[in-house]
């Protein structure tokens, strides 16, 4: 027994180490540059740690305005701890997500163990989670979702443990608190946790009543949630955040609603409601599009289906096997119902947004699907071992083939993530912004004014809204000074601090400026018409195509 326990622990530790390695190895190098979310968060961490205020001078805000998106602040506050150890390095902002992503492997192990009481299956599930494309990808960027993600699985594991075994009531309460804590961390969790808890209460109602863990924990849950409800009702920034991403902002839905307008307003209201329901349901079911899940959902490339999904391609048959196994399973009827209800409920947040797919709001679903596919693989491996007519050699061959397929899939992920993703999507990482910022500071003494127009794009233009954060951070600009200097200018999109003006460049007027360094993309300036001698530097995307030019006026 002791041997089994130690073997189990060793394997679990090895899996967690493997998962940790995949999440921390070259964390500062991949993704190749901090994107605008990470950049703004990092500078806010430094600002909060040093001054207690965000860069706009708000004292310990609940939601950070950042660049107009009003992100919940927990990730920034959490990173201030990492800041104490690692300072204001680029990697600092990624550490909490990587750490929580690693801990999620452990929480998933506990969750599966509590659910099916099978440590082999739990180990296999944790291995699958450790190697999961979505888990690795989202753990390696400063993604606030990952914090609540860990807490949900951890809390569910504790709750399941409490109701299924003779455990202290504090285990149950800790589980409940852990899950409710998750609702504070990310809007998607705020939307999914209540229905998840509700389904838990319904499915395990008999066990909960037996343990008298029904009424007062429920009340306790409400008390713990009260501050959040208070915040939602009183903090317009948080509400703004939720509103801007809601499905109602989908332009396609807007067209359908417009087409449903009738002269009778009551009828219009009825049809509009129906269209909302239809649209949301369609969006919901589309989250289970196999192409999205197993083919291209992570969007690493611009090559259509030659991409990777949140789950590996090889997981398709394993997932199907897992579902079949769960349905066929004669015992654990409540557990499997709960697992399936978790999948169905956790996808709600991702499907109620304005985007067709929001993988970053559906990580929990991907992890649950990964767990189901691990169940499928467990069944498959057990069947191969237990089937007597399969000869030992054939058995080894089958295991070898399966392992080889998994390894190839993993190498494919590594290739796409480390090689192709930067080439194909460097724009989405705001790739040359670091170089631009460093160069701007290198020219600080040569020009009285430096103008930067962050409109850029490889194929189509977009605005890099966090440009001021990049310049401030890479110049080591004192956040306190930034809070004092930062102001909105009169020109389109203009923000100013020190000698930097970040704004739209209007070339017919700006070409006549003197003693000014202008950094802009070909989307803003007619680069072919400008004297070559005036162009003193070119900044490229990762794939080598030009992103910005520095023009000396």
């Amino acid at each position, binding site marked *: 027994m002791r041997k089994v326990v130690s073997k189990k622990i060793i394997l679990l530790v090895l899996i967690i180490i493997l998962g940790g390695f995949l999440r921390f190895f070259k964390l500062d190098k991949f993704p190749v540059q901090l994107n605008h979310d990470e950049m703004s968060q990092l500078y806010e961490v430094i600002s909060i740690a040093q001054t207690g205020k965000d860069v706009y001078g708000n004292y310990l805000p609940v939601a950070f305005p950042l660049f107009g998106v009003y992100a919940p602040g927990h990730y920034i506050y959490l990173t201030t701890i990492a800041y104490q150890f690692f300072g204001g390095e680029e990697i600092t902002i990624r550490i909490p997500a990587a750490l929580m992503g690693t801990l999620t492997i452990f929480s998933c192990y506990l969750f599966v163990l509590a659910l099916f009481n099978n440590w082999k299956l739990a180990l296999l599930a944790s291995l699958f989670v450790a190697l999961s494309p979505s888990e690795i990808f989202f753990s390696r960027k400063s993604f606030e979702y990952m914090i609540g993600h860990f807490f949900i699985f951890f809390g569910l594991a504790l709750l399941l443990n409490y109701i299924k075994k003779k455990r202290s009531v504090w285990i149950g309460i800790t589980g409940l608190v852990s899950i409710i804590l998750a609702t504070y961390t990310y809007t998607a969790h705020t939307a999914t946790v209540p229905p998840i808890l509700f389904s838990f209460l319904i499915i395990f109602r008999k066990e909960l009543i037996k343990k008298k863990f029904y009424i007062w924990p429920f009340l306790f849950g409400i008390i713990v949630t009260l501050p959040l409800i208070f915040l939602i009702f009183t903090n317009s920034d948080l509400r703004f955040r939720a509103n801007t991403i809601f499905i109602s902002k989908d332009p396609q839905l807007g067209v359908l609603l417009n087409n449903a307008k009738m002269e009778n307003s009551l009828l219009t209201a009825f049809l509009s409601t129906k269209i909302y329901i239809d649209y949301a349901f*369609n969006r919901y079911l589309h989250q289970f599009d196999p192409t999205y899940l197993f083919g291209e959902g992570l969007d690493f490339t611009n090559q259509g289906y*030659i991409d990777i999904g949140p789950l590996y391609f090889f997981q398709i048959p394993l997932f199907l096997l897992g579902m079949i196994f769960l349905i066929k399973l004669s015992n654990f009827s409540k557990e499997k119902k709960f697992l399936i209800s978790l999948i169905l409920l956790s996808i709600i947040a991702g499907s109620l947004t304005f985007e067709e797919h929001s993988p970053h709001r559906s990580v929990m679903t991907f992890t649950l699907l990964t767990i189901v596919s691990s169940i499928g693989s467990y069944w498959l491996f057990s069947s191969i071992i237990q089937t007597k007519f399969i000869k030992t050699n054939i058995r080894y061959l089958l295991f070898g083939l399966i392992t080889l397929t998994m390894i190839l899939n993993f190498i494919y992920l590594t290739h796409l993530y480390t090689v192709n993703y930067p080439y194909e999507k460097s724009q989405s990482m705001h790739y040359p912004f670091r170089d631009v910022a460093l160069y701007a500071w290198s020219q600080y003494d040569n020009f009285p004014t430096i103008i930067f127009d962050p409109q850029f794009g490889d194929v189509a233009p977009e605005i890099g809204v966090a440009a001021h954060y990049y310049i401030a951070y890479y110049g080591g600009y004192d956040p306190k000074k930034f809070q004092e200097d930062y102001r909105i200018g009169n020109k389109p999109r203009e923000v100013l601090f020190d000698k930097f003006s970040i704004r739209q460049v209007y070339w017919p007027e700006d070409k006549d400026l003197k003693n000014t360094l202008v950094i802009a993309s070909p989307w803003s300036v007619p680069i072919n018409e400008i004297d070559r001698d005036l162009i003193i530097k070119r900044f490229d995307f990762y794939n080598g195509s030009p992103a910005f030019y520095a023009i000396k006026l």
Partner: protein
Amino acid sequence: MGLAYSLINPKMKLNNNWLVILLLIVAFLVRLFPLNFPAFTSDEARIAFRGYTLIRFGTDELGRKYPLIFNSLDDYQLPLTSYITSIGVAFFGKTDLGVRLPFILIGTLTIWLVYVISSLFFSHKFSLLSMLIASFSPPLIFLSKFPNDLIILVFLLLILFLNLTKKYVNLLITSITVVLLLSLSKFSWFIIVPYVAFTLFFYQDNLTKSKKLAIVAFFLLLNFLIIFLFLRIPQSVRSFSENNFLLFSDISIKNGIDKLRGQGIQSGWSVFLEKILFNKSHFLFVGFLHWLSNIQPAVFFAQFDKNGQFGFVSMGAWSKILIIPFLAALINIIKKNGNRKLKFLLGYFIILTYPVFFAYPKNLSNVTILILPFMAILIAWGFFSLKNWVSKLIILLMILEVVINLSYLNTQIKNTNDLRPLWIKEIVLDGFKASEKNKVAFSDDITSDIVPFLQWYALHTSTGSSFNLTFPYKFRQTQISDIKIIGSEENFYNCGLDRPTYIFASKRDLKKIHKAEKINVNKVYEDSLRSEVVYLLPPIICVK
């Protein structure tokens, strides 16, 4: 099978027959009214007009005598649909009723066939339920309302199923059915043989294995013969490549492989590993994912066709609520409950849709209509596991959803404003009237192809006899008698002494004309969204 023919068995309870007849009447009425909905797409209008010319003049719209291969904007069209359309025109003339009725009848009979096939598996009650479910499937309703090959394909496939599962397989009837199927659409060339083989081996218990194999071999030969004959037509290879094997002709996959591999080599990864990771096997993965994507749950229960061509934009192949009995049926299958043969129906999901694999990147979710009759049976089976009151509620909600959608068609008309331009009728009728005395021209970007609309809504003569085309492929007409279709490359000038033209200009051409000369517009036409689409100009301007 006994129950299958109970309809014509006088000993059977009258009640049962009445219910079947009642449901058939409901299915027929749902398909019949409103008669002019949905408005035709340009290809449907082309088939409608062709049906008229075939029966009236013995030629197609391009003046060819009883051809076997027809023209369309996408591909060659096989003959059966056009000739079936002409039968309706023979009885009811060049009217909506004439063109649509054959399809309404075929669609209604398809529902009856669902009942008959269900009877092989279920009691009368659940067979009726299958029938009811199929009656209210939006794509099965839609495709029964305009000329198209899909509904005939569904109908003939069900006939074939019944023939093949009879105690004594009548080879003559079966062969005729197969020949009809092969002359219906190229898609059927891919599915017939596996369909016959699967049906024989899983549902036919009376024939020996060798006889089954002989039948399959016979149809395989027949299939090859048809393909061989087709390949003798010019551009047949192109037709296959552009419509059925796009996966292999689509350059984006090969480019993608090369690009990603190149990036790896540039980053120092070994060429050998690059070749292992990025190679032609990606064609298989892409095709497979494309196929899965076209048969995903959302297609069946949420949005069958986002363009609204084959169903309501906001509905799947079934009412949303039917996902519950369908999942219940799948659980039954996995748990090994119920009739073994019912489970094999899932096989048709693969057999009838696998050609989608080769069609990447073309979205072909509309071919999933072929499995809807079998799916109706599975859904009905799912009701077995549900409580009575739940079943009743589901059926009520199912009917309610379809009825609501059918009651507010204006929304659907607006959603399909470009694809099914209801508003085009007024424009082409005005244009045709003007062409009796004057030259008339239409911009070619008013709709995807305006010629079939002109022919269908306005013309009563044969056209195009001057075209000397044997096998027209994606052919576009640019002139019908005195009516000219204005292309984007054409210019305008003040007519002066030349014979003036009434121009029905799109925004594109109006802008061009205004650059040359400022003139007032005689009349403005709006589309279903109340946007200005066409401007009738006074006869001052001529087309160069």
